[in-house]
């Protein structure tokens, strides 16, 4: 049978047309390319009506594409707008920059690999896994060079953890600026990571008595390096090669990255090539010039690794407005670097009154947690907020509280309560209240 056998069947021409319904309709109606955009839209609406019950849809009366039509699966074409996006004015170029996950279109705690937010300091390197090496040295008994094959032989673990860039929400310190969930909160993503415990590797090289700090370094052009206290390394850090069941994506550090659960994303060094054990921190550029928090009085805080508890309503949001009064489910995400989410409260009146939202399983340590609450919208203006409490009892603060402590120039670690303004027409806006 020739490979294009099925394609020559008449039913498949319908199925090909299905891939571009507008074109299909055009040829069906015999109107061709002369159609104006608006007209095409009207035609599309007419067609939508036509294929609702009781009518059968074209995809119900034709043969679809076969297996391995897409040997590596891709989302439906109609989902093409669900992509990572950047804010062009934020950085000089895209090589040292950030992209944001489309949280408004995600439903669950796991971020699909192609939508995990990106942060590079020297672009995305294409690392050859055959040539890649992990060197572990410094205050150790037995310095090692490991290949990827070597690393895969060590006992493996899988854990679900979020990674959040501490600059998530960094543009909102002064005022509401970006009218979008994707851009106010999209520097957080969550995945199942598989790899080796860092403690296993540190035991394998043997720590000397003076060992107190660990430096981790990437193989990219930035040679990104950060210092980590030894206790954290021995606690829950992972050296991972897999993300949501498949090899890490190049964007996420292929073939090997560190995951430091619950701490600011920058320390989870990607394309990891070197671990050096020492007795003092390194005070690298990324933990002095950057990733330090400037206070209003001119002093700065360094080594502020922890991601404090944070939550956000993901529906409704500026990208997903309401369509008229009625019953809705308010949905959102909550997370904390301090363990598990204990409770989430939701307010629809700007924080005057709060209700306890339902948390959805699984509720995992240092992972995104879903919450929801039903809400009957009366069509009047509303101010929606969510507030998380983590297992230490810490309560997510307001932006006013945070500014009181830190001023407006600290860039990082804005974990404040987000307010969404709902207007009578159902549209939603990013606002701050005081």
């Amino acid at each position, binding site marked *: 049978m020739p490979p294009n056998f099925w394609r020559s069947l008449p039913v498949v021409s319908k199925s090909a047309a299905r891939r571009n319904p507008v074109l299909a309709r055009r040829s069906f109606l015999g109107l061709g390319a002369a159609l104006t955009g608006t007209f095409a839209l009207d035609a599309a609406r007419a067609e939508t009506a036509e294929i609702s019950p009781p009518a059968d849809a074209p995809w119900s009366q034709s043969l679809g594409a076969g297996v391995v039509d897409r040997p590596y699966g891709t989302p439906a074409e109609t989902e093409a*707008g669900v992509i990572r*996006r*950047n*804010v*062009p*004015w934020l*950085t000089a170029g895209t090589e040292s920059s950030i992209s944001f996950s*489309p949280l408004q279109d995600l439903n669950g705690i796991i971020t699909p690999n192609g939508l995990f937010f990106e942060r590079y*300091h*020297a672009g995305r390197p294409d690392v050859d896994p055959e040539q890649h090496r992990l060197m572990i*040295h410094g205050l150790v*008994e*037995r310095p*090692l*060079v490991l290949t990827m094959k*070597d690393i895969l032989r*060590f006992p493996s673990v899988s854990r679900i953890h979020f990674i959040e860039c501490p600059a998530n929400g960094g543009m909102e310190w002064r*005022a*509401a*600026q*970006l*009218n*979008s969930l994707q*851009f106010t909160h999209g520097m957080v993503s969550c995945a199942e990571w598989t790899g080796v415990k860092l403690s296993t590797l540190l*035991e*394998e*090289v*043997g720590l000397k008595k003076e060992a107190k700090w660990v430096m981790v*370094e990437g193989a990219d*052009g*930035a*040679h990104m390096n950060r210092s980590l206290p030894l206790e954290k390394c021995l606690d829950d850090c992972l050296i991972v090669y897999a993300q949501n069941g498949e090899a890490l994506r190049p964007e996420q550090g292929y073939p090997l990255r560190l995951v430091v659960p619950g701490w600011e994303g920058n320390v989870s060094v990607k394309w990891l090539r070197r671990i050096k054990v020492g007795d003092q921190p*390194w*005070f690298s*550029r990324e933990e*002095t*010039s950057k990733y330090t928090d400037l206070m209003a009085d*001119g*002093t*700065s*805080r*360094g080594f*502020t690794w*922890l991601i404090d508890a944070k939550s956000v309503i993901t529906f409704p949001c*500026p*990208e997903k407005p309401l369509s008229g009064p009625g019953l809705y489910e308010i949905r959102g995400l909550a997370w904390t670097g301090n363990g598990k989410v204990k409770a989430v*409260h939701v307010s629809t*009146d700007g924080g*005057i009154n*709060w209700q306890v939202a339902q948390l959805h399983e699984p509720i995992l340590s240092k992972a995104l947690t879903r919450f929801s609450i039903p809400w009957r919208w009366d069509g009047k203006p509303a101010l929606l907020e969510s507030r998380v409490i983590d297992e230490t009892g*810490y*309560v997510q*603060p307001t932006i006013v509280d945070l500014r009181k402590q*830190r001023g407006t120039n600290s860039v990082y670690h804005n974990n404040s309560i987000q307010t969404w*303004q709902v207007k009578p027409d159902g549209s939603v806006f*990013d*606002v*701050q*209240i*005081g």
Partner: protein
Amino acid sequence: MFRSDSHRSVVSSAAKLLALTAACGVIVCASPVAAAEPGHFGYGTVATPEQIAGWDIDVRGGDGAGLPAGTGSVSKGESVFADQCAACHGTFGEGEGRFPKLAGGKGTLKDDRPELTVGSYWPFAPTLFDYINRAMPMPTPHTLSADDVYALTAYILNLNDIVPGDFVADKDSLPKVKMPNHDSFLWKDPRPDTAARPCMSNCANPADIKITSTAESRNLTPRTTGPLDTMQPK
């Protein structure tokens, strides 16, 4: 290398097994999977001094540990900078377009719009050597000689009036340079620094709830539908 190493690890785990057996003879052997000794798995190869030397590039900010041999003057730094760095950072470190400023901003840290630069913000001078060496020039990182990196470090410090024009940077002089903002850092996280309480009802006076800012119509937000928005005027 690989051979002799794997041999050694076999010997060491055999010795460990013996030790374990001996211990079990005396006390109850509760946990045979106790913390592994170095070389327990025996995977990989022991790093050679040459391998380590090639990759061991880190310089510690606090004491300059790891600074290599070499030396560089302010005037040499000026010419290397003009060649390799000025296109992005400006001839005097003033920063082209949105590329970072490397000089100036002194005394602005308490301002409404502070300017964070090497001179106004960085706490440690050896960090400057480390960063230029590992990450710059951006298009071809880690390709400069140690002498050139020392010279660039000297030049940028001089642009910030931190060292005089005749300063020569090397592994002894750099750790002695005191950065103006050195003492302003707290290296211990003071958080939690807020103590909100989970009030559930009548938590605020409705009259006090005012919208203080809105992102509506600010024209800062890229489109979040369709293809990527470059935000270029059409």
